[in-house]
C-alpha cells in the first residue's frame, strides 16, 4: 500500500514537470537538428553569417534588434568573430557592416540633427522611428523586436523555423481577413472565426506577417543553396544567437564546473566515510 502511494508520489512529481500549456492550439513543432543543441552544442559560425544575411535582407525591413550592438557581431561565439582581431572594434567585417547604417545624431558643432554612419558601439537601428509608425506600416500589427524572440516563444528556434516554413492555405471554412495569413504553428484560438464543424476547429492562428521567406529570396555569400528551409534554419540559428550570445561560454563553463563538482563530491564522500568510520550508524 505504502509502495503504491510512493510510486504515485513519484508520478505526480513527474507530472509537475510539464510546462503550463494552454489547450492544444497549434501544431507540434517540426523536429530540426541544431548545431547548438545539447550540452556540447556550438554555434556554426557560417550558419550565423547566413542567418545574419537573412535578417539583414528580409527581416530588418520591419523587425528591430534593439539589444544587439554591431560590436556583438564580432564577440566570441558571434557570426563575425575572428581571433586575429583583439576586439570587435578592430574587426573589419563589423566595421563595414556598421558603416552601412545611418544613426540619428546631432552635429557636434551646431547641434543640428544629422544622420551619421554607425560605429561598432551603436545598436542596430529600427526601420521605423517609433511604434506608431511600425503599426501604421503593418496594418496595425507591431513587428516584435527579435533580440529575445527565440527565448520569448515556447519551442525556441524550432518554433521560429516551424512558423516560417509552416504557412499553409487556410481551410475552406475559415475566412481570412485581408492583411492576415493562416499559420497552423501560431498558437491561437480560431473558434470565433471558424465557420465549419464546431468539434473540428483547426489549430493555429492568423498572423499579420505574410510568408517572408522563399527560395532564393537571399543570395548566400558562401554558395549554400538558399531554399526556404535553409533560410528559415539559418535565421532561427542567428536569432538564437541574438537571444543567447553567451551560450557557448555557458556550456563550456558548465562542463568544467560539473567535472570539478563531481570530483569535489567524491572527495567529500571519502572524507565523510573516513571521519565516520568508527561510529555505528
Amino acid at each position: 500500500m505504502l509502495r503504491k502511494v510512493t510510486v504515485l508520489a513519484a508520478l505526480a512529481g513527474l507530472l509537475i514537470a510539464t510546462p503550463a500549456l494552454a489547450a492544444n492550439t497549434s501544431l507540434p513543432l517540426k523536429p530540426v537538428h541544431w548545431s547548438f543543441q545539447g550540452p556540447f552544442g556550438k554555434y556554426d559560425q557560417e550558419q550565423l553569417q547566413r542567418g545574419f544575411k537573412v535578417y539583414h535582407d528580409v527581416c530588418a525591413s520591419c523587425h528591430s534588434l534593439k539589444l544587439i550592438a554591431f560590436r556583438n557581431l564580432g564577440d566570441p561565439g558571434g557570426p563575425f568573430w575572428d581571433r586575429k582581431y583583439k576586439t570587435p572594434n578592430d574587426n573589419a567585417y563589423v566595421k563595414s557592416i556598421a558603416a552601412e547604417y545611418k544613426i540619428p545624431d546631432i552635429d557636434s558643432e551646431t547641434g543640428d540633427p544629422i544622420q551619421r554612419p554607425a560605429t561598432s558601439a551603436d545598436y542596430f537601428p529600427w526601420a521605423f522611428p517609433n511604434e506608431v509608425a511600425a503599426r501604421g506600416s503593418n496594418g496595425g500589427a507591431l513587428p516584435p523586436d527579435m533580440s529575445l524572440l527565440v527565448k520569448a516563444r515556447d519551442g525556441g528556434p524550432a518554433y521560429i523555423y516551424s512558423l516560417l516554413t509552416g504557412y499553409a492555405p487556410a481551410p475552406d471554412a475559415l475566412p481570412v481577413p485581408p492583411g492576415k495569413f493562416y499559420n497552423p504553428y501560431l498558437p491561437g484560438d480560431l473558434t470565433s472565426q471558424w465557420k465549419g464543424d464546431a468539434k473540428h476547429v483547426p489549430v493555429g492562428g492568423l498572423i499579420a506577417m505574410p510568408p517572408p521567406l522563399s527560395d532564393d529570396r537571399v543570395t548566400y555569400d558562401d554558395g549554400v543553396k538558399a531554399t526556404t528551409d535553409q533560410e528559415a534554419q539559418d535565421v532561427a540559428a542567428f536569432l538564437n544567437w541574438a537571444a543567447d550570445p553567451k551560450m557557448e561560454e555557458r556550456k563550456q563553463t558548465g562542463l568544467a564546473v560539473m567535472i570539478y563538482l563531481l570530483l569535489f563530491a567524491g572527495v567529500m564522500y571519502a572524507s565523510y566515510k573516513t571521519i565516520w568510520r568508527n561510529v555505528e550508524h
Partner: protein
Amino acid sequence: MSGHSTYEPKTAIERWIDQRMPIVRFSKDHFMDFPTPKNLNYWWTFGAILAFCLGVQIVSGIVLAMHYDPNGDFAFNSVEHIMRDVNHGWMIRNIHAVGASMFFLAAYIHMFRGLYYGSYKAPRELLWLLGCVIYFLMIVTAFMGYVLVWGQMSFWAAKVITNLLGAIPVIGHFITTLLWGGFSVDSPTLNRFYSLHYLVPFIIAGVVGLHIWALHVPGNNNPVGIDLKGKSDTLPFHPYYTVKDGFAISLFLILFALFVFYMPSALGDVQNEIPANPLVTPLPIVPEWYLLPYYAILRSVPDKLMGFIAMAASIGLIFTLPWFDTSKVRSMRYRPQAKLYFLIFVVVCLILGWCGAHEPDELVVPGLDGFNLGDANINSFVWLSRVGTLYYFIYLGVLPWLLPLFETPLPVPDSISTPVLGHPAATPAGAAASPEKKG
C-alpha cells in the same frame, strides 16, 4: 542540550577576546562542539543547505544590484545588460534566478522532514514558528524579486497579487496604494519592491539566527523521535556533521549547476522575456513553480476575499500545527497510518502545484466530457484544485488531533542506538572520538 562550555583560550589574544566578547567560545560551543544526535539521516542536511542557499542568494544579489536599474523604463534592459555585457553577468543572474528555485526546493524538503519526524512538537514549537516566519519572508522576497525583472509575467503577477490584497476589508485599498506607490502597478512600485527585496533577506538572516538559537536549546530532533538518553547518543557537530553537510551541499550544487549552465530557462516562463506592457495581458498568468499550490488554492474559491482568506489560511495553518497535533509519538516511522496520510499529502501538494499551472476551465483529462457541477465541469482543474484544497486543510487542520484518537502506533525504541546496535549505547563517546587519528 548544550552542556558546559569546554573552550580553553590558549593564546593571549584569545584570552583578551574571550574576556571582552566571547565570540570564539560561542562559535566553538555552537558550531563545533554542539552535541548532535548520532542517527541523523540525510533529510537533516537541508538546514545547512538552506543556510548555504541564503548566502548564495545574498552574494549573487548584491553583485546584481550593482548593475540593475530599478526605473521602469530601464529595468528590463538593465537585466539584459547584465546577461550580455557585464563580465560573467549571465552566470551571476542565472545563479540568482535558479538559486531562488533551489532555495524553495530545499525549504520544502526541510519542511516535509519536519512534518514527518514531528520536529515541530514540544519543546520545539518556537523553532517551528520561526521556520514558518522564514518561509513567509522567503515567499515575500521571491515574489518581489520576480517583479524586478519587469517582464510581462513580473508586471502582471504584481498586478494580480497587489489587487488581491485590495480585497481585505477596510484597510485593503490603503495597503494596495501603499504597495503601488500610486494608483496602479508602475515604476514607483518597482522601486519600492527593489528596496524591500534588498532588505528582507537580511531580516531572514536574523530570523535564521533565532531559528538556530531556538534549535540549540532543546537540541536536534532525530529520526527515531525520542529524547536522547545522554552524551553517548551524540557526536560533536564538527567534524561529523560539517563533513556530512558538506557532502550533501556538494550533491545539491551538482543539481544547481545542471540548471544554471544547461537549463537556465527551464524553471522560468517564456512570457517574462517580453518587456512589461500594461496594455497586453499574457495568457495564462502564472507564478513561479514554488507558489503554484497556493495559486491553485486561491483559484479554487470563486469569491475574491474568500479565495484570499483560503490562501492565507493555507500558510497560516502551518503555524498552528504544534498545538493541533495531539500524538504522543513524534516520528511517523512509528505511526504507520499517519505515514500513509503524509504521503498522500505530499502527492496532493504536487497535484495542487500541477493545478496551479493550468487554467481553471481546462479539462484535466482531455477529451473526457464530464458534467457540470456548480460553476464548472467536474473534469476541470478548478474541481481538482477543490478536492486537493479540501485534503490540504483536513490534513493540517483536522487529522493532527483526530488521527491520534484512532491510530495504533508501533512500539518506539527506548534509545536511538537500539535500532542500529540492538541495544542502547553503553560506551561513552570515547569510542567515536579522535576521527582524525588513523585506525
